[in-house]
């Protein structure tokens, strides 16, 4: 029978094809099947189930520069200092003391008897080795520049020439004195430097990190309140309290299950139906009814993030004398209040300076510092722009990356400017397809027109909002702004031993910057979180990350 014969061939072809595809996959199945069937927890076991995004980089402290990886590092590491979740103040934790007499040479004593979750001791060497690893250019750590203030950084991380090889493996400014003491020599005086040490790039690392790196990345080990019990990359991570942790923030729950979601909307649906406990990113479409959906189990508080747009100060058209009036006029033409209310549903707060409310008044935040420069005044704005010679070429664009939801507010800002000028073609949004492409154009100084920018703080200090962004040659000074007076004020502030005086100097610099207006401050981004009825005591720290150790599971 013809049919049966053909059927044999169909089967034959299928076998050959399957065998061909199997060849390619059998080559890599050599390594053992790890990460399979790490069972997710069910309810009523005291474990908090929280939303998670897949970390973009391997979980190394000096290589994690985004929130999702940072979330885990926060839970599994205790640094020399940690930031108080309520006040943002840097408090000694793993360190017994950090002392200096000249603001340049620091002696750090690590608490005795601290242990990593694998039982190995936390010593001065754990810190020194970790920092040297983070700084060495061949280790390609994204946060390497955090160590740039330490003496000897240039030898391990030459940055003048792209092809330069490091001339040393360790920084000369770090010296281990004994098991629990080490000294740090900075390149120059920097009074608030110890307060930076809460940033996770400065975390200590156990020996396994250096001896068996692959195993470490599969299951990171730290000295913090939690330890990793299981980690299925791209899917979930289960953390349980670390029995070796002796610090002040002992977990009040039996563990945390971080679940990676493919989309925020799905996570929100899961939260509503009780399959998820903590969600710290609410989909914009659900913002108007989030309080009803969750019976008020929702928080919305300031976070250390400021949204801005930057002028290309390297472009003559935008930086020539007289343009400062135009830039100021543009800032005054923006109706920040209406935009934050209507587009962001109150999850943004109109900016009144260049820092963030999380710093508090003592830390340098001010509700009045920028004054008229950020107050909506369309008549004055139009007048200023005309006095300054008008927009270069009669119109402007605001660049943004289209792969994140920026279009709405950029269009609203442009509308606001257009209304003030009475010309609905004066300002339009200029989308770039991907974030990567957008950042490339910025770093290569190809932006001829203003572009969207933003800053998320690394540590809650005013210095972090000013120096990287506005100092000449600052690490993230994308608009290439330069003002010698600002530079000298920043240097004075860094060398000043008294915090209040140092903050006052930074604020003076801030005023000068606002006069030049190289970057238009728009609004402060808030941290949000919604939670299920199953958990209580959900709060967020200054970095808008939930304080997991405080969360309790009901019942």
């Amino acid at each position, binding site marked *: 029978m013809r*049919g049966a014969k*053909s*059927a044999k061939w*169909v089967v*034959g*072809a299928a076998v*050959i*094809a*399957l065998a*061909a*595809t199997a060849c*390619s*996959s059998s*080559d*890599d*199945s050599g390594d053992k099947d790890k*990460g399979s069937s*790490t*069972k*997710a927890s069910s309810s009523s076991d005291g474990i908090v189930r929280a939303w998670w995004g*897949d*970390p*973009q*980089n*391997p979980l190394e402290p000096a290589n994690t*520069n985004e929130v999702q990886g940072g979330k885990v590092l926060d839970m599994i590491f205790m640094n020399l200092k940690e930031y108080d979740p309520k006040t943002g103040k840097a408090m000694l934790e793993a360190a017994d003391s950090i002392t200096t007499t000249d603001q340049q040479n620091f002696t750090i004593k690590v608490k005795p008897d601290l242990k990593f979750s694998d039982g190995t001791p936390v010593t001065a060497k754990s810190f020194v080795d970790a920092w040297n690893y983070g700084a060495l*250019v*061949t280790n*390609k750590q*994204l946060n*390497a520049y955090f160590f740039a203030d330490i003496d000897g950084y240039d030898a391990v*991380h030459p*940055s003048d020439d792209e*092809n330069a090889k490091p001339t040393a493996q360790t920084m000369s400014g770090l010296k281990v004195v004994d098991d629990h003491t080490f000294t740090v020599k900075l390149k120059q005086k920097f009074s608030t430097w110890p307060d930076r040490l809460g940033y996770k790039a400065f975390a200590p690392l156990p020996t396994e990190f250096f001896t068996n790196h692959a195993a470490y990345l599969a299951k990171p080990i730290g000295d913090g309140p939690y330890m990793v019990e299981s980690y*299925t*990359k*791209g*899917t979930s991570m289960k953390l349980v309290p670390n029995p070796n942790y002796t610090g002040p923030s002992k977990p009040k729950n039996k563990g945390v299950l971080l679940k*990676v*979601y*493919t*989309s925020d*909307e*799905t*996570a929100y*649906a*899961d939260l*509503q139906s009780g399959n998820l406990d903590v969600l710290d990113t609410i989909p914009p479409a659900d913002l108007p009814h989030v309080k009803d959906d969750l019976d008020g189990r929702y928080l919305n508080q300031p976070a250390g993030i400021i949204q801005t747009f930057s002028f290309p100060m390297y472009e003559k058209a935008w930086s020539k004398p007289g343009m400062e009036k135009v830039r100021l006029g543009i800032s005054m033409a923006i109706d920040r209040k209406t935009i934050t209310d209507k587009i962001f549903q109150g999850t943004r707060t109109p900016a009144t300076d260049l820092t963030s409310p999380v710093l508090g008044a003592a830390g340098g935040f001010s509700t009045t510092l920028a004054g008229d420069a950020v107050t909506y005044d369309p008549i004055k704005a139009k007048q200023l722009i005309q006095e300054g010679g008008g927009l270069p070429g009669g119109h402007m664009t605001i660049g943004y990356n289209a792969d994140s939801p920026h279009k709405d507010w950029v269009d609203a800002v442009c509308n606001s400017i257009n209304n003030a000028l009475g010309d609905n073609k004066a300002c339009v949004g200029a989308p770039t397809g*991907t974030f*990567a*492409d957008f*950042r490339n154009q910025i*770093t290569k100084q190809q932006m001829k027109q203003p572009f969207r*920018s*933003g*800053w*998320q703080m690394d540590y809650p200090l005013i210095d972090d909002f000013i120096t990287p962004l506005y100092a000449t040659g600052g690490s*993230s*000074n*994308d608009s290439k702004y330069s003002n010698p007076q600002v530079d000298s004020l920043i240097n004075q502030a860094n060398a000043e031993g008294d915090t209040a005086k140092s903050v006052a100097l930074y604020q003076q610099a801030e005023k000068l910057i606002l006069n030049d207006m190289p970057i238009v401050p728009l609004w402060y981004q808030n941290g949000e979180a919604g939670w299920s009825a199953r958990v209580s005591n959900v709060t967020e720290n200054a970095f808008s990350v939930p304080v997991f150790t405080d969360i309790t599971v009901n019942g």
Partner: protein
Amino acid sequence: MGRYVIRRLLQMVPVFIGTTLLIFVMVYGLGDPVAAMFGDRTPDPATAAQIRHDLHLNDPLIQQYWIYMSGIFHGDFGKASTGQPVSELLKSAYPVTLKLTIVAFVIEAVIGVALGLFAGMRRGRFLDTGVLAITLLVVSIPTFVTGYVLQYLVGVKWGIVKPSVGDGAPFNQLIMPGLVLAGVSLAYVARLTRTSVAENSRADYLRTAVAKGLPRRRVITNHMLRNSLIPVVTFLGTDIGNLMAGALVTERIFNIHGVGYQVYQGIVHNNPPTVVGFVTVLVIVFLVANLLVDLLYAVLDPRIRYA
């Protein structure tokens, strides 16, 4: 026929090389991924140079492609942006998507053919009009709308099933996503079957079969359905590939960590090894499914022969 199969298998080689090259060039065209790794910050030039060097980004495109391809033949699919080997991702994602595809395929084939058969046999009656109206409705609603609406109603409002799929994607949790994914194709299958059945029910050989007194059951299954299924099988075969690729939207809505999710991550993070690796396997699935469909013709219709 043996020679035909071998010829078709050999034809896959240039198609495979062509598609991988095309995809590689397209992902490469998205731009330099290094700047995005640093977030809103300006990249540290020395670190960025180091990363570029390690990813071979400074080499000419054709050389990068060569490095990538020679890696593949050693079973090395490169690394995703998270540092995880792409082969590991393939291993974890493909079974999940395959499960979803099987669920969707079964729903599509069984319900689609059944609806089409009944509608075709009762041409012009209420059932026929009903099927036509429902399929028209399904075809005109985009997948993400049905997905979100079903998720909200069934998952959140009525709480019948979980709104998202958990670890490992068990079959029972995949029924709702499978239904959503199969929706549009199901409508096509039903309509194709209906037309084909309606046409064949007037064919001479069917009248003959009835006239010589064959039982109705045998007439329908052996004579009518088998002959009517040729266009449907063509559609179903090519649809396997479409279902796997089209799962991107459905996987995102229902939190299924499959192929669509990984390809999306690869595109967002501008990571050629992830995208090319996944799409390459998809291409192979397409090619094999097409070959199988062509061979199935001969089984269904003895008049078709491959020399």
